[in-house]
């Protein structure tokens, strides 16, 4: 375990160096994740003449500001990395390293998270302090739950995308799955609209899918829209989804790697 930790430390530091080398490209990736802000603009135009459902203009700003932050802090692109590495055979090199390849991919993602965290955490805190009309409820317990839920969101997105990316072992067009997943995430995760504002039956469907825990759940917590039992309940469901996706990852990896080896170089 300690050995693994040291490896992570080294790989993440390497990752940060690499990312900083391509800082222009990184800045562009960060800016292109501004979809939540577009949705905020549209909802604000609706909230001009009074609140929409339970959401005032200030709620929308708070909601989408936090969504933006959660989305930045859970950004994952491993399906594209896997797709490239499998199709070009670069995965061979990673398989030779004395470490499960998923750890190498994760450490690179953690490097990105460290940079985005340093960039955006102060911005979000400053905005929350400077604009009193933004509606959030950062009590100490909410903050702790938020950090937990945010970590859960990242794990869920990572495992889901990694699992989908592995379908490239079998189909060359497997990235389509990731695209479909992405659309469902935007719709049922609470990016197009806060889940409370989804019309039926979309709202009911959303509560049975894992996407809520990839985006909306941490946001709802920090906005103070959930009671403690609701939060704990959500944490349990989220943990179950994590376990399920971890199982999917293990299964797909074991089978995929056998299939990959079957190409025989």
């Amino acid at each position: 375990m300690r050995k693994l930790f040291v490896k992570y430390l080294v790989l993440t530091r390497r990752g940060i160096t690499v990312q900083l080398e391509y800082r222009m490209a990184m800045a562009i990736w960060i800016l292109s994740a501004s979809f939540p802000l577009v949705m905020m603009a549209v909802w604000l135009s609706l909230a001009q003449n009074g609140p929409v459902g339970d959401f005032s203009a200030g709620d929308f700003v708070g909601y989408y500001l936090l969504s933006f932050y959660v989305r930045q802090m859970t950004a994952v692109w491993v399906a594209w990395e896997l797709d490239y590495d499998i199709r070009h055979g670069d995965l061979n090199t990673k398989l030779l390293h004395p470490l499960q390849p998923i750890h190498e991919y994760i450490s690179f993602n953690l490097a990105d998270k460290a940079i985005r965290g340093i960039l955006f955490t102060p911005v979000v805190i400053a905005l929350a302090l400077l604009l009193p009309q933004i509606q959030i409820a950062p009590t100490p317990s909410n903050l702790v739950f938020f950090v937990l839920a945010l970590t859960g969101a990242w794990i869920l997105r990572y495992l889901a995308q990694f699992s989908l990316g592995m379908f490239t072992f079998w189909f060359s067009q497997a990235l389509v799955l990731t695209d479909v997943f992405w659309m469902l995430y935007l719709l049922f995760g609470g990016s197009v609209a806060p889940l409370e504002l989804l019309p039926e039956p979309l709202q009911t469907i959303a509560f049975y899918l894992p996407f809520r825990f990839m985006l909306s759940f941490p946001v709802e917590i920090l906005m103070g829209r959930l009671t403690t039992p609701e939060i704990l309940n959500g944490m349990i469901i989220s943990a179950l989804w994590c376990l399920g996706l971890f199982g999917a990852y293990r299964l797909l990896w074991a089978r995929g790697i056998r299939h990959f080896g079957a190409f025989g170089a």
Partner: protein
Amino acid sequence: MFKYFKLLGIFWKFSVLRELEYRANFLTNAFMSVFWLFWGIIGTTIFFAHSDTLGGWTYEQVLVVLGLYTMFLGIMEAFFRPNITEMIEQVRVGTFDFVLVKPVNAQFYASFHSLTMWRLADVVAGAGLILYALRAMGLTPTPMQWLAFALLLAVALILVYCIWLGMMTMSFWFVKIDNFAELFYAFYETGRFPISVYSGLLRAFLTFVIPIAFITTFPASALMALLDPMELLIGLGLAFLLLGFTNRLWRFAVRSYASASS
């Protein structure tokens, strides 16, 4: 001039032949086009569950905007995306020199020699949505409205080309930036909705700086008798100006291009 049309025919023929090798791509692309279209319609429906209008536009009117958004997404992915991807790679590796020594205009060659035919599925899907929404409103545009629409489509095509030419030009200076297009798409997302949804500075920015309004909102207005003739005039002027500017920028960049070695 005739030579260039002939060349265009040859380029596209080869692109199509190459794509016919990968027929599974057609299925996945057609599937994704339809899926995205429905996604967009559902998204629009969500807003209208809480209000009768969006930026003063009715549901069907917004669907026309969404149709134009989808059409131009297809056009950009079919005609411009493959070329910019290739050019960025060529500049990075140094093979762009071979484009420059060809006996055709380098800008023409770099902009148009490749085509991803399958993405035209989006153009069909978008046009279908526009026709559906017009029917649902019981609207039949007059010949004058069709003419204004055609003019604004031409303006939009020119503006879209200018934007992509501008991004291609950037690749001379920022080598290894392959995600400019993603950044543009982030702005393009705003084109799903009529420009009147956005307020103040953002609206001015999306009208004049990155003129998304002229790509989706104004052509849609033309079909539904919502167009202010002034907008058509401004559009023509903007297209003219931007075309001149980006052409000049391209020529300036080519002159200062020093290839990959050295």
